[in-house]
C-alpha cells in the first residue's frame, strides 16, 4: 500500500527526514514511533501529499504522491498533528463539508457522514458547535473526518495526544476496528499504544528508521538480555558462591529484602533461561524460594535502548 524509497526531506538548512525506506502492506496497522522531532510528522505530511519530498519517491497504492497527487489524496484520510478543525462549525455540518471537499456527491456524503458519525459515536453531538466540544469528542470528529470518504489508507498523526485514559481507550478501540479493511499508519510517542494497536512498529530517530518489526519480534530480539529475578532465603555468602560457580550466570546482583530473603537479579549468558537451574539449586540446598520470574523487555526498554544515544547527546 505504501512504498517509501530513499525519502529525504530538507527544510531550510535542516534535514528532517534522512533517506528512509519502508513499505506497508494493505490492511496493516503500523505505528510510527519516535521522540519529538524525529521526523514522524514530516514523513506523514509528505505521504499525505501536503509537501513534496526533497528527494526519493513515495508511492501509495502504486501511485506517486507528487505526480498523481489528486488520485492519491482521494485514497488517503489524513488527520494532522493537533487535529485542526473549524471551531465555528457544527459537527454534522463540518463532516458534510469535508465529505463534499473530498469529492463525494450530495447523497453519498449524507450517507457517509451518517455512517462515520455512528462509527465514531458522534450521533448525540451532531448539532453541537465543534468549538464547544470536549477534547475527546473533537478528536473523534477529526477521526470521522479522516474516515468520511472511506479511504484505503488512513494516516493519523498522534491521534490520542491530550486525551484522558477513558477517551484514549475509546479512540484506540476505534482505530483497532479499522484493521483489515483499511491500512492505518499512526504516529505516537506513547508506547503501550503501539503494543496494543499495531501489527508493526517503525522506530524513527533523527530522521532515520532505526528499527522495523512486530512488537513481539522486537521483544524477542531483546530477550537475550532479559534478567531472571529470584528471591531466596539463604546466607549471603552461600548465594554469592552459588552464582559465582554457575557458568550460565554472566552477572548477578544481590539486594537484601526483609527477613532472610535476598533479591537476586541474574543476567544469563547467551540468553539461556536460568529458571530451572535456580530452582534446582534451591531444592538442592534446601533454600526457601518465594519468587522466580524472568523479566521481559517491554517495548519501552527497546525504545529507550534504540533511542538512547540521542537522548544522551541532548543532555
Amino acid at each position: 500500500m505504501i512504498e517509501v524509497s530513499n525519502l529525504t526531506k530538507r527544510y531550510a538548512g535542516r534535514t528532517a527526514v534522512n533517506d528512509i525506506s519502508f513499505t506497508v502492506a494493505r490492511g496493516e496497522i503500523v505505528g510510527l514511533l519516535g521522540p519529538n522531532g524525529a521526523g514522524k510528522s514530516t514523513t506523514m505530511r509528505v505521504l499525505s501529499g501536503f509537501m513534496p519530498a526533497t528527494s526519493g519517491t513515495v508511492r501509495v497504492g502504486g501511485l506517486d504522491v507528487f505526480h498523481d497527487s489528486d488520485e492519491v489524496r482521494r485514497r488517503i484520510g489524513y488527520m494532522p498533528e493537533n487535529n485542526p478543525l473549524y471551531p465555528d462549525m457544527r459537527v454534522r455540518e463540518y463532516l458534510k463539508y469535508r465529505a463534499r471537499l473530498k469529492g463525494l456527491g450530495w447523497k453519498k456524503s449524507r450517507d457517509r457522514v451518517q455512517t462515520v458519525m455512528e462509527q465514531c459515536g458522534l450521533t448525540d453531538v451532531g448539532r453541537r458547535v465543534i468549538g464547544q466540544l470536549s477534547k475527546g469528542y473533537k478528536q473523534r470528529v477529526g477521526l470521522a473526518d479522516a474516515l468520511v470518504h472511506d479511504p484505503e489508507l488512513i494516516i493519523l498523526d498522534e491521534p490520542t495526544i491530550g486525551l484522558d485514559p477513558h477517551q484514549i481507550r475509546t479512540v484506540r478501540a476505534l482505530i483497532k476496528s479499522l484493521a483489515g479493511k483499511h491500512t492505518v499508519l499512526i504516529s505516537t510517542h506513547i508506547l503501550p499504544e503501539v503494543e496494543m494497536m499495531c501489527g508493526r512498529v517503525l522506530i524513527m530517530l533523527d530522521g532515520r528508521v532505526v528499527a522495523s518489526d512486530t512488537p513481539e519480534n522486537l521483544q524477542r530480539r531483546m530477550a537475550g538480555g532479559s534478567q531472571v529475578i529470584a528471591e531466596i532465603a539463604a546466607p549471603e555468602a552461600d548465594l554469592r558462591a552459588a552464582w559465582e560457580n554457575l557458568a550460565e550466570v554472566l552477572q548477578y546482583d544481590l539486594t537484601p529484602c526483609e527477613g532472610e530473603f535476598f533479591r537476586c537479579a541474574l543476567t544469563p549468558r547467551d540468553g539461556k533461561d536460568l529458571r530451572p537451574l535456580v530452582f534446582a539449586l534451591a531444592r538442592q540446598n534446601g533454600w526457601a524460594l518465594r519468587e522466580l520470574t524472568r523479566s521481559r523487555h517491554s517495548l519501552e526498554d527497546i525504545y529507550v535502548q534504540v533511542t538512547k544515544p540521542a537522548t544522551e547527546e541532548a543532555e
Partner: protein
Amino acid sequence: MSIFLTLFRRELGTFFFSITGYIIIAAVTALTGMSFVVLLQNLGNDPTTVPVTEMFYGTYYFWLIILLSTPLITMRLFALEKAAGTFETLMTTSVGDAQVVLAKFLAALFFYMVAWLPLLGCLFIVRHFTRQVAALDVHTVGGMYLGIFLIGCLFLSLGCFASSLTRSQMAAAMISFVLGVGLFSLGFLALALPASSETSTQVIAYFNLFNQMHDFARGVVDTRSVIFYVTTTFLFLFLTLRVVESRRWK
C-alpha cells in the same frame, strides 16, 4: 464546480455567521451615514447640480471605508487557516489551489458588496428629501457601484495576497493596509505631478485612483481604468496562487 461552490459557501458562512462580519458591516454603514450627514449639510448651505454620488466619493469617508474595510475582510482568509492548521486538512482533500484562492476571493468580494448596500439606502433618502430626480439617476449610481466593485476587486486581491504570506492575521492586515495606502498615495503623486508626456508620469497617471473613481461617480465608464483594475486584480490573485502553490516547490 461543486467543490468550488462548497468552498465558496463555507467562506461566505464564516463572514455571515461571525460577529466580526457584522461589525465590519456596521462600521461601513456608520461611516457611510456620517459622510451623508456631512454631505447633506453642505447641500443645505449651497445648492448644486453635481450628482450626489460624485459628492460622496469626494469625501474622505469613502476612501477611509475602502482602505480600512478591505484589510479587515481579507486578513483572515489564509492567515487564520495557516495558524489553526486547517490549511493542511484543506489542502489534503481533492481541492485545487486555484479553487481555494478563487473561492476565498469571491466570498470576500461578495461580502464587501453586501457591506456597501446601505449606501443605496442613503442615496434614496437624499433623493426623497431633495426631490431632485436629476441629481441621482441609474447611470451615476450604476457607475458608482461599478467603481466600488472594481476598486474592491483590486484591494481585496491585494488583501488575499497579504494574507497568504503570513500566519498572523495582524501582520496580514498591516501588510495589505500598507500596500493599499501605498497604491492610494500613488494617486496623490499623480495629482501632484504636472501633466507631461514623460513615460513615468503617464504610467503613474494610470494609478490615479481618484480620477478613475471620479469618472465612475459621474457615470462615465472608461475602459482604460476598467482594464487597469481587472489586470491588477488578476496580478495579485496570480501572486496569491503562487504563494499557495509554493509549499509544493522542492
